[in-house]
């Protein structure tokens, strides 16, 4: 870990900010399976619930080649171009 000094007037917290939440779901929702065993079961169930509860929403499934490495750029860019929302199934 390295420490640096904040060059700004410090009115904004220095942290990776989470994206703004819109409060509703529409458009295309991506479901990203990171290739951990049984991740597909969770995401398929999410697919079923979204289809039931948010009928206008289009769902697309994506799969990372391996959970052990960062998402390849091409897949990241594809998801960015195609989706309005993304749910990523992390951890076990």
């Amino acid at each position, binding site marked *: *870990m*390295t*420490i*640096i*000094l*904040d*060059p*700004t*007037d*410090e*009115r904004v917290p*220095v942290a*990776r900010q989470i994206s703004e939440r819109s409060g509703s779901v529409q458009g295309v929702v991506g479901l990203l399976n990171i290739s951990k065993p049984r991740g597909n079961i969770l995401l398929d169930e999410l697919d079923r619930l979204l289809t039931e509860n948010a009928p206008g929403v289009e769902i697309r499934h994506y799969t990372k080649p391996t959970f052990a490495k960062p998402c390849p750029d091409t897949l990241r860019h594809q998801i960015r171009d195609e989706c309005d929302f993304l749910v990523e199934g992390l951890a076990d």
Partner: protein
Amino acid sequence: MSDRKPEFTLKDLQGAAHPFDGTGPALVCFVKEDCETCNIVGPVLQALSQAYGDAVRFLVPGQSGEKNGDFAQRHGLTMPVLEDAGCKTSFDWDFEIVPALYWIDESGAVVTHFEGFVRDDWQALSDQMARATGKAAAQIDWDSLPAWRPGCGSKHFDPEVYDALRAEAEGSRLRARMVEVASGDDMAEFMFDQGFSDGLPLVPPTPERVIRMLEGTHRDPQDVIATVPPNMGIATVEKIAINAVMAGCKPEYLPVVIAAVEAVCTDEFNVHGVTATTMGAATVMVVNGPIVDKIGLNGGLGALGAGNRANATIGRALRLIIRNVGGATTGGVERSVLGNPMKYTMCFAENEAASPWEPLHVERGFKAEDSVVTVFAMTGGPVHLVDQTSRRPDQIAGSLGQGLEGVFLPKMHNLPIDALLVVCPEHIQTLTVDGPYSKDRLRDRIQEVTARPLSEMVQDDHSGAGIPVADAERMGPEKLAQLAPKFASKEYIHIVVAGGDAGKFSSAFHGWATGEVGSISVSRKIDLG
């Protein structure tokens, strides 16, 4: 000698903590494993410990990390050899040379302190300890030891260790928020992500670097230099130093950056407007005086860019401060339609040696021996003014005047707008070939050669800029025949000398809105303490 030494708790080689509360009787000796003098002292310490160890606490802080064990083993030390990890305790105790020995009494007073090895001093110490403890004198063959050995510099003075220790120890001097960047994060990318950058990579402003930068000024780190628009962020010396580090400045550049921040954050200069205007203005800094040579600013070959660290990073530091402390981000308050490469950096020195005139800062009321920064709000430039064939003074002066026709639009005259003319040495030679040619005469010549009848400035099919047709009709032919020079007054023409010896190419910066509605150039003396 009586000042109490700071308390510490250090671990020995087995990991057991040894608190020292500052009182004795104790003998504390700091050592470094690879120091030859420390290795002379090692057996002496062991002999002293054997003789007086029952009555005196012996502590030997080592500065050599894992090698402290080697030192203890080499000399068969039986007293605690302690790990002064990071040399923090050495720093706190504030000595310069190892071995550094302290003989401390019950009250915490330092009875004896010496650094290095002087045999007589150590022998006297042994006698003193014998008397104080009532023990038999230590068995040491003093004659086998050298009379004098200087010792080694304490490890805490190693630059990379020392600056980190100072940053930590002087924590109260540094008030800026500490941002922890995880080891898995790429530092350069992190700083881009945080929006700290002007688009180019930054030097990470670690506490060590900022402490070093602050040595460039006598000002207190918490002195407030200015409130920086648009957010009216507080620019302390420390915040300026942080941004100067990121820009790549050396510590000796810092006073120039501080003066520049003072200059732009004035009502006259109006850096808010300069930053926000859709016209795309930027600050052009000209530096005069002795500091130019002292810190290596460039007023000669290539003065307007690139390749000189001082020019490049001082100008950049100012821009980063406006961005980071003032909050002027591109697309936020920074709203220039096209932008401007001078928004990265634009700083140069006047080539006073090549100038026949008094330097800019003297012209503006400062003493020649002052070092001064002058800031101009400029929208365009440097624009080359090419004339390789004029041989007479009024010819080259005329060419320089015609070269300024492009300010705003060639058609527009009587402009209450600044221009900064940078005359190169070869043009100066032509200008003065027949004798002195004053700046004022040059200004008059510029106004003379650019004078055009107002009738040429009426809106027409070639250009809708200029005097509205209805106004022109009201003015009538006599009024329209009157001549209008390029500038509303010759005071709008600022002139400096810069550039290398070879090349008949001068240059000009074109201004933004000048005056109360826009920006007025400002000079500030650089505070060198």
